[in-house]
């Protein structure tokens, strides 16, 4: 898909000309189909994450959830976030997850008494939560509809706000990432490695 061409078309919406025509189907129908397909993928992936008992299968279905969310971001006109979602979430974070699953050789999860109790309390609580959220959303007035030609936030607009108004929070984020890296290294450092290093130098 040529995003630049798409963008140029969307910037100049003219009322008498049909905007954004991908294929024989009109833009609106295409939008609806894409929404349903990827919302379905998203929910199926999330449900599969719960049903699988092996962590690596859960990790793979989480990748499906995150990648289909990237397509939904694209439908909502957030092109930078869609790419960032794929690179940061489905790329970096999920690679980290799969690495840890394989490194620790995590097998099937075991069923204990605690898991049954969690099921008994968990499911009704979550159904109640979902019901409250859904009624609140459906009762809300003036939410409107989301069409693709309503406006795409280009990376340019985003970076203008990010680097002019919110420069300090952005820089603070880099410090946060740096501290997280240091913390991760400090936590995973194997204590025995230092001791054996010292022994090795002492024996020389």
């Amino acid at each position, binding site marked *: 898909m040529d995003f630049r061409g798409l963008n140029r078309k969307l910037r100049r919406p003219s009322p008498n000309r*049909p*905007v954004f025509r991908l294929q024989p189907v009109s833009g*609106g*129908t295409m*939008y*609806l189909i894409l929404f349903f397909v990827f*919302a379905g993928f*998203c*929910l199926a992936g*999330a449900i599969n*994450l*719960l049903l699988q008992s092996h*962590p690596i299968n*859960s*990790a793979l279905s*989480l990748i499906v959830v*995150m990648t289909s*969310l990237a397509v*939904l*971001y694209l439908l*909502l006109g*957030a092109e930078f*976030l869609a790419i*960032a979602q794929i690179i*940061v*979430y489905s790329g970096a*974070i999920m690679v*980290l*997850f799969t690495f840890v*699953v394989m490194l*620790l050789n*995590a097998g099937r*999860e*075991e*069923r*204990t*008494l605690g898991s049954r109790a969690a*099921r008994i309390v968990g499911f009704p*609580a*979550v159904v109640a939560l*979902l019901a409250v*959220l859904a009624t609140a*959303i*459906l009762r*809300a007035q003036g*939410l409107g*509809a989301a069409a693709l030609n*309503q*406006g795409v*936030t280009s990376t340019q*607009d*985003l970076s203008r706000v*990010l680097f002019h108004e*919110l420069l300090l929070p952005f820089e603070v*984020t880099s410090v*946060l990432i740096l501290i*997280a890296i240091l*913390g*991760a290294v400090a936590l995973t450092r*194997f204590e025995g490695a230092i001791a054996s290093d010292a022994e090795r130098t002492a024996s020389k």
Partner: protein
Amino acid sequence: MSLHQDVPLAWYLLLSAALFSLGVTGFLIKRNLITVFMSIEVMLNGVNLSFVAFAHQWHAVKGQIFVFFVMMVAAAEAAVGLAIIIAVFRARATLAVDRIDLMKL
């Protein structure tokens, strides 16, 4: 383009609520430390979706920037969280949350 072909914003918000609830369910019923952590990521993604939907609705760029910051914090959180999981596994040789019930080593 007729109006009925557009997706109502409420559907996006419902999808976001469903994702968040599935994340909470996973957090409660999964018994593996790594899968519990993955459920937290699902919750974060659900919240991000509603941020993007509202940003689209009100043409607010700052909503998207908020999602960007959430992504950065999630990356940092994943790095530290997985490091903690590795440290716990070294100390206990198990990933079952029911067996990790003491703070001290």
